[in-house]
């Protein structure tokens, strides 16, 4: 029996985030998950509506939550694949739970449209959380038929999944390893990417290209520095910014970067052995072909590489007279994904 969730795709799913849409359509059935799209949902307001009017923005989101409450069909989980949609839905739910006054105001507004929302009756979760918590890494690993070994990926989770984190689901809000672990379970080589939750620029590409393009540049430069073939994202807005504006960024800074950015679901599909064209590959502006070439050739490791790998796997012994100071143990809860 398929696990069912309510689904709030968000406005970009049909446009700029089409590849995300395609890959979700392909991958989720394989994991026996059914997403029931919320009927007649409206825009979440992105990062813009809060700045026009906080209360109207909450009412706007409130309508979606109210729809979800009406359309519950054995599940109270509303899944959002877009980080901005996710945070907007989660915020309104969190705020009406915390403030009776706000709940009353939002419901007052909703009543004008013949609707109402009971605070807390819908659980808003990001698609990544569903993958990590409900499906589970081991289960995902079971579906891998074409490990992505040789493909070096920079896990770029972006800002809004682990922050502000209204329900305290993330222990690590700046350096979570959830996406790293997921990609590792697909067999990919995951690079240590220190900008994993930095900002993609958000609306800055629209309102201040100086800053917006610089933020994109930092993400790309850092990914290159860490040796990644591609960035992996969980948000259509991040994808759009890094992908679409990369050329303009190159132009502005007189540089020549070519860093594709892919949705994590696309990579899941690839690892599950699905054909690339069903997963929205080719829709990206910065082509992923050079990156994918790395796994197109399933060459065995050279002797040197094997020796290197084996050396890396052996625990280091301290040489006599080695002055190196021991480094602190990594966080004990590092294995905890977030």
């Amino acid at each position: 029996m398929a696990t069912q969730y309510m689904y709030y795709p968000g406005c970009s799913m049909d446009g700029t985030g089409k590849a995300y849409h395609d890959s979700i359509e392909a991958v989720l059935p394989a994991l026996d998950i059914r997403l029931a799209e919320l009927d007649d949902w409206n825009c979440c307001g992105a990062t813009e509506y809060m700045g026009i009017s906080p209360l109207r923005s909450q009412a706007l989101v409130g309508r979606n939550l109210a729809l979800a409450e009406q359309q519950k069909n054995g599940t109270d989980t509303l899944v959002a694949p877009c980080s901005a949609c996710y945070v907007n839905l989660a915020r309104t739910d969190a705020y009406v739970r915390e403030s009776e006054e706000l709940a009353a105001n939002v419901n007052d507004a909703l009543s004008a449209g013949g609707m109402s929302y009971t605070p807390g009756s819908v659980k808003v979760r990001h698609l990544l959380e569903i993958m990590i918590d409900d499906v589970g890494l081991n289960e995902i690993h079971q579906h891998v038929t074409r490990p992505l070994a040789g493909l070096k990926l920079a896990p770029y989770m972006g800002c809004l999944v682990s922050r502000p984190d209204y329900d305290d689901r993330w222990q690590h809000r700046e350096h979570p390893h959830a996406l790293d672990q997921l990609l590792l379970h697909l067999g990919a080589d995951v690079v240590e990417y220190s900008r994993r939750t930095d900002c993609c620029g958000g609306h800055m590409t629209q309102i201040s290209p100086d800053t917006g393009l610089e933020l994109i540049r930092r993400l790309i430069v850092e990914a290159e520095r860490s040796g990644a073939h591609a960035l992996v994202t969980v948000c259509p807005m991040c994808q759009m910014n890094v992908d679409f504006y990369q050329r303009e960024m190159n132009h502005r800074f007189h540089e020549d970067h070519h860093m594709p950015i892919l949705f994590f679901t696309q990579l899941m599909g690839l690892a599950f052995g699905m054909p690339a064209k069903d997963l929205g590959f080719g829709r990206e502006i910065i082509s992923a072909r050079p990156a994918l070439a790395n796994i197109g050739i399933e060459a065995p490791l050279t002797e040197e590489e094997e020796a290197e790998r084996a050396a890396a796997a052996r625990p280091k012994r301290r040489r006599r007279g080695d002055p190196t100071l021991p480094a602190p143990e990594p966080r004990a809860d590092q294995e905890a994904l977030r």
Partner: protein
Amino acid sequence: MTTPKTGVYVCHCGTNIAAVVDVEEVRDWAASELADKGVVVARDYPFMCSSLGQELIENDIKEYGLERVVVAACSPHMHEKTFREASSNAGLNPYLTELVSIREQVSWVHTDKAKATDKAKAVIAGGVYRVSEQEPLEPLIAPVNSATLIVGGGIAGITAALEIASAGYPVHIVEREPSIGGHMAQYDKTFPTLDCAACILTPKMVDAGAHPNITLHTWSEVVDVSGSVGDFKIKVKHKPRYVVEEDCTGCGICVDKCPVQVIDTGFESGIGYRKAIYTPFPQAVPKYPVLTPENCTYFAKGTCKACEKFCPVDCIDFTQTDEYVELNVGNILLATGFQPFDARRIEAYGYGRLPNVFTSMEFERMSNAAGPTGGKIVLRDGVTEPKSVVIVHCVGSRDKNTNEYCSAICCMQSLKFAHLVKEHTDADVYECYIDMRTPGKGYDEFYNRILDEGTQFIRGRVAEVTDSLRYPEEAGCEGRLMVQVEDTLAGVKRRVPADMVILSTGLEPQPDATEVARMFGVGCSSNGFIIERHAKLAPVATMTDGVFAAGATLGPRDIPTSVSNGAAAAATILSRIAQGEIAMEPYRATVDAERCSGCRICNDLCPFSAITFDEDAMVTEINPKLCQGCGVCVAACPANAISGSGFSHLQIMAQIDGLLSDTSGGAGRHAEEAVGATA
């Protein structure tokens, strides 16, 4: 019922009370309207607590033969004792004197004079009604065992131990590490004078180790506490050292021969190594090494025994197990200290991810001449000297995401680090701080000295430490760290390139502070530090009689404060021992066996295990030495068989009546209402 003769004394407290409460009106009202409750004299006086004010009361007790006294003045927490002693001097049982608060509860919190005056009357009426039901009480007397248990052998514990032992009384120090010395032994220099920590600490450690009145229980833990003030019974677990202490000469050959080297996360704070059998540092007291089975090859594989083979006195014993000893002591001092904040918890600072981010304890060991680098300030590679060092203040302090409190020592410790870096290297040093807090003796002078040495100060809390560079402006900084901070005085954001970042970590309670507090029956605030009996006036006592606390177990504090705490606790304990017996407030619950139905409802209510059930007589008994007087059992007893002295049912009911009594002087409001209802 005969009403006892009562005197009422209304204090002006200068103008503190008199400016809001009409004290004369209150006095007259008490004299006339409370006469039927036994008030025979009512007076007002500018300062009742002065010696003249007290004399007034004493004279009246003699002249009028007063049987009860009510003083309307400040809070009982302020002067209850004063007035009880005054009564006692005049021959009246001290517990027959009641202090009611018309300052903290009336004049300081209300502005409407008529209403404040009215409330003052009610408060006095409550006191008069209540004290009329009070019975004379005698303080409880208990003998005091002259031995003292000190838990924790850091500088606070050592100081207290030496004071008490030198006065001629036995002391037991229980320390869970292999050596006494505590955190102070790890430091190189101490602020602000920059004395070498070992130079001032080791003589004290040696004294403590050699003192005939001090027994050291190192590598040991207290596992059980019972009894009460004057007569505690303590169970101490000695963990196996696998070294026979009686025979060991401390020669150190076993340590040399041990082939297993492990990272020393204890004394060396994780930047040095130790053997599987080790003494944490050369000056350790006692000198006997400790073997840790989890690291030992013999325990893992059954072979090796290098230590045993080479030991010249055959004192290695792999068969040792936990040993338990029982101690009887009269007083307990908790000096369990702190643990440094785990800097991994602030992800933005990169500790544990970025190798050249160090914690303050790591830096302390690094700067120590006896430490892993021999005192050289170097990066994690062990060789490179930093060119630029940024010291980050308030790591794990003043942060609602971690610890809300100020850790008190970090500003000074950071300044010390700046000095040490400057002393040992040519590096540029930056201090990023929120507020510079240097309130100790010579501390601000030290700050000035560091300013003078050329350390650069940036007023701003560091936002993040990163290895991700920005181009082109940071080209050439590859491999370095960038410290991102808003310089709030200049109003600009800065990215300071650094080779080394030192996180000035705050102080946290020991990880098991809550369990320790529970075991000793003392209160612990929600952050885990022990609560003192009174933050200002009883700073080293706890709410539990006979249990004291000193040093960082009470909250973050530096060495001078910890030492004064230890000395203060020692003085308090010595005064208890010198008295030979102690008087305790007689607020205790007692069972009237006649009325006890044996229902046992009260039996599970006492957290101090004072309530037991006598199976033969089928009645409940309360041990007055264990009873703390909370009164929960009194309230719960369905047969009214338990009474609580000082807070009896009759007293409280009387006070309720008094507080709600009519203060108008004429026919009362409630009388009218009642008439109206029945008419």
